[in-house]
């Protein structure tokens, strides 16, 4: 079962310079909320920013990860 820590590590490992805050919103290891900042988000649309994060998890979203709520932005 995925954990919030595991999601954080995967995001930060896959996206250069990313910082992620991840919460398990239900405590059941399948619904998460993540706030992610990464330099690569600069100049990209929200759709593109979210796709970069979804891509980290490939087929896991909709599978073991039922829901991943995202807020993304470039670092300030």
């Amino acid at each position, binding site marked *: 079962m995925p954990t919030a820590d595991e999601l954080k590590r995967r995001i930060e490992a896959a996206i250069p310079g990313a910082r992620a805050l991840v919460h398990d919103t239900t405590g059941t290891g399948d619904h998460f909320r993540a706030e992610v900042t990464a330099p690569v988000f600069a100049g990209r649309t*929200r*759709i593109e920013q*979210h*796709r970069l994060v*979804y891509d980290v998890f490939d087929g896991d979203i*909709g599978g073991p990860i039922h829901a991943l*709520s995202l*807020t993304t932005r470039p670092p300030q």
Partner: protein
Amino acid sequence: MTETNPIRDAITEAIADHPVILFMKGTPEAPACGFSARTVAALQSLGAQFAAVDILPDPRIRQELSAISDWPTIPQLFVEGELVGGCDIVMEMYASGELAEVLKLEGPAEPVAPPADAPQADGLQIENRLA
């Protein structure tokens, strides 16, 4: 023989035929998921007219939709054939006023009756909705 994919074709057609279309779990009256419910509520509070497709009756709808849109989650809102976002993006855009802009709405819209003969894509239950 060319491989046909009627579900994919029906989704592509539905996106092309409806200026605002929401793929969701459940229906606008009875959303089957909190994310779908929030997205419907945002659209309705702007008085947006939108078509809705329930993806739950057939798992292939979601599979084909995600393949077309390169977006893994539900709901998915399309405006003028373009993916605008899922629940998170729609809610952010609602809060910032961008959603009303994209939908070309300025505050509460005058209710407009949907065309009685709105095009229906084969094999998909599409409902035209007024807030």
